[in-house]
């Protein structure tokens, strides 16, 4: 009888532990927030953008800095304008379009050490004015 009680207790505990483990497993990885704020379609198909956006940005950056070509298609400013969160005006932050996916993929994001992550209109403009005042 005693042995049976111990077996039942052990079974209950292990099931509880398993369920606990599953819950923890689900919340351990933060899934990226992919919220498209503006526009029907991006400048290239989604799969292409996910795989190659860094190459497009790198290519455009050299064209802009060295040749003075400010084409809007792959410009970082245009990325930010569509993808910045409407509440914070930024592509960074917890639910930021760039930051959340880069956190998920564990890839360091260097752009915004120099470039502003804020869009020029709406909440981004307000945050920019605040930053200018703090300067």
């Amino acid at each position: 009888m005693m042995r049976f009680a111990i077996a039942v207790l052990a079974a209950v505990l292990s099931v509880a532990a398993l369920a606990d483990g599953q819950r923890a497993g689900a919340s351990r990885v933060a899934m990226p927030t992919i919220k498209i704020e503006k526009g029907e379609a991006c400048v290239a198909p989604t799969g292409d953008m996910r795989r190659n956006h860094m190459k497009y940005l790198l290519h455009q950056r050299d064209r802009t800095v060295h040749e003075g070509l400010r084409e809007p298609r792959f410009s970082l400013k245009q990325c930010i304008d569509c993808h910045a969160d409407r509440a914070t005006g930024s592509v960074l932050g917890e639910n930021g379009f760039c930051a959340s996916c880069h956190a998920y993929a564990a890839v360091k994001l260097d752009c915004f050490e120099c470039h502003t992550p804020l869009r020029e209109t709406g909440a981004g403009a307000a945050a920019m004015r605040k930053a200018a005042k703090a300067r």
Partner: protein
Amino acid sequence: MSPDRRQFLAWGSAAAAGAALAPGLRLIELVQARSPEAAASALERWGLLIDIAKCSDCDVCVSACNEENGLSGHGRPQTDAHWIRKVELRDKRTGYAQALPLMCQHCAEPPCVDVCPTGASFKRDDGIVLVDKHICIGCRYCVMACPYGARTFVHEALSGQKPDVPRGKGTVESCTLCVQRVDRGETPACVQACNRDGASAMLFGDLNDDASEIHRRLRSEPSRQLRADLALNTGVRYQGL
């Protein structure tokens, strides 16, 4: 010579004749805003002409530059960013003092470009000397090489940059001749502020365009380059020095 080639040359000479009817009179105006799809061209060379006699005791050019480019200080003049600054010159014997705005002189033969080990310091085709901060490693050779002390280093992490003027820790920076405004067909912020203030000590234009005001004045009035002995062929010229 094939007829095609002959025909082509005839068209070419007709086009050349049409483009410049007489000195200073053109059917096609050279100075205009480029479209975003047109690259900076070596046909142009952007420059400044600064008349010291008209430069008054103000610093609107400096504050306009700081505002346009989002420059901020930490209250440490030794290391703070200065893209343009007012420099006072004093004759030691007579005590006669003059103040002039000093910034990157946008040399045709820039020493900062010669010494850069990564190619980050470069001259754009239209004569504007820039730093590509993506490839700048912050070695500061260019800061040492510049005879005008025009370049500064960003020592501390920054935030709140302007969308058109990215700046970051660990890179060198200097006057860009407001390249973001020039690409839109506007004049640099310092020139606009100086003209708005009524002083009109600064003139911006295309040194290669013989129809431009800056070309006309450089042609007809005396002007000087700073440290002309270095033969750098500066894009910024001074009068009344």
